[in-house]
C-alpha cells in the first residue's frame, strides 16, 4: 500500500465520520421534535379530557343543606301520595333550566315513577331577575284553587318563552285559563289578588332562608341532590332511593 492510498482512505473516513455525525445530529433533532410534539399533543388531549370529565361528573356528589319543611296539605303533590320516596323540587316558572327539567320530571313521573314516588312542587321564583315569575306563581295558584294547578304548571313551562318578560303576560295567562276551561272571573280575581303576590314573595324568602341559591333545586327524602345531568342519571338516582327505602 502506498502512502497516497493511506491518505485517501483517511480522507474518506473523515468524510464518512462527518456524514455519520450529521446523521446522528439529524436523528437527535428528530427525537427532540417528536418529544416536543408528543408532549404538546398529550397535554392538550389530557387537559381537554379532564375538563370534559369534570363537567360530566361534577354533579354526582350529594350536597347537604338544612332540613326542608315537611310536606303538608298546602303543597302541590303528584304521583303516589303514600310513597316513602318523596321528591321535592324548588322551581321557578321563568327559569329556562327549570323548563328543561320540567320535561325530564314529566317523563319520569309519566313513564317511570308515577305510582312509586311522591313528587312535590314548591315555588322559588327568582324575583330579582325574573320579572314575570311572580305573576306566573299567581297564575298557577289561581288555577290550583280551581283544581288545575298541574295543568297550568305544564302550560307555563311549555310556553315559557312566550310569556317570560312579556308585558302582556297577564293576558296570556288568562288565555291559558280559558284553554283549561277555568272560571275566568274567579281566575282573574285570584291572579290580581294580593295573596298570590305575597305567596310568591314569601316562597322566595323561605327558600333563601333555607340556603337555596339556584333553581331548580331537588330534594329526595329531605336530602338535596346535585342536579342530575341527564334523564338517565335522574332515573338512576330515584331508583337508588327506592332500593334504599324498601
Amino acid at each position: 500500500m502506498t502512502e497516497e492510498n493511506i491518505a485517501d482512505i483517511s480522507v474518506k473516513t473523515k468524510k464518512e465520520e462527518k456524514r455519520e455525525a450529521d446523521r446522528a445530529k439529524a436523528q437527535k433533532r428528530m427525537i427532540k421534535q417528536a418529544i416536543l410534539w408528543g408532549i404538546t399533543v398529550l397535554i392538550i388531549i389530557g387537559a381537554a379530557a379532564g375538563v370534559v370529565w369534570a363537567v360530566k361528573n361534577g354533579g354526582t356528589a350529594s350536597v347537604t343543606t338544612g332540613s326542608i319543611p315537611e310536606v303538608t296539605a298546602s303543597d302541590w303533590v303528584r304521583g303516589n301520595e303514600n310513597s316513602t320516596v318523596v321528591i321535592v323540587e324548588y322551581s321557578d316558572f321563568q327559569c329556562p333550566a327549570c323548563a328543561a327539567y320540567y320535561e325530564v320530571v314529566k317523563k319520569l313521573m309519566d313513564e317511570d315513577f308515577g305510582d312509586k314516588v311522591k313528587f312535590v312542587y314548591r315555588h322559588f321564583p327568582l324575583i330579582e331577575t325574573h320579572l314575570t315569575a311572580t305573576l306566573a306563581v299567581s297564575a298557577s295558584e289561581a288555577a290550583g284553587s280551581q283544581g288545575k294547578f298541574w295543568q297550568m304548571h305544564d302550560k307555563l313551562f311549555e310556553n315559557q318563552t312566550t310569556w317570560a318578560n312579556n308585558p302582556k303576560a297577564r293576558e296570556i295567562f288568562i288565555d291559558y285559563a280559558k284553554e283549561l276551561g277555568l272560571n275566568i272571573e274567579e281566575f282573574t280575581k285570584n291572579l290580581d289578588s294580593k295573596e298570590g303576590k305575597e305567596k310568591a314573595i314569601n316562597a322566595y324568602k323561605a327558600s333563601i332562608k333555607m340556603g337555596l341559591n339556584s333553581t331548580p333545586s331537588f330534594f329526595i327524602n329531605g336530602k338535596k341532590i346535585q342536579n342530575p345531568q341527564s334523564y338517565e342519571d335522574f332515573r338512576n338516582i330515584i331508583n337508588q332511593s327506592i332500593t334504599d327505602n324498601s
Partner: protein
Amino acid sequence: MKIFETSSTNQSQIIPNIFLLGITLIGFTGFLDSVYLTAKRFVGGPIPCFVFTGCDTVAQSPYALLFGVPLSVIGIFYYLSVILLVVFYFETKQQIAMKMFSLLSVVGFLASIYFIYLQAFVIKAFCFYCILSAVTSTTLFILGATIWFQCLQNKEAE
C-alpha cells in the same frame, strides 16, 4: 428600541422563549375555557338559574351559534391553532408561523369585540367564561401585534 434581540448571523429576530411560553399559556387558558363551554353545551345538564347572577342566558342564546356551529367549538380550533403555531415556531424558528399567529389574533380580537357587543347590547347579559375568552384573545392580539411590528422592522433592516 427593540424588544427582541437580533441574532448576529442572519439578522432574523428570535422571539424570546418567555414570550412564546406566555402566548402558549394564554392560548391554553383560552383552549380550556372553550372546551369547558363546549362540554357544558353537549354533556352537561341545563345550567341552573341563580338568585342574583341569573341564568346563563348567554351560553343558551341563539347568538352562541355561527352557521349552526357553537362558538365555543370555533374557539377550541382558534386557541388550538395558536398553540400549535407557537410550538411550530419554537421548533423551527420559521417566522411565517408567527406572522400567521399575528393575523389570527386580529380575527380573534375582532370576534371578541363583536361578542362583547352582543352580550352588552343585544342579549343584555354577560357570561363569565365568554368574558374570560375575550380577555385571553385580547391579550393574544396585543402580543400578536407586538410580534408583527417586530417582524416588519426586521424586514426593513435586511
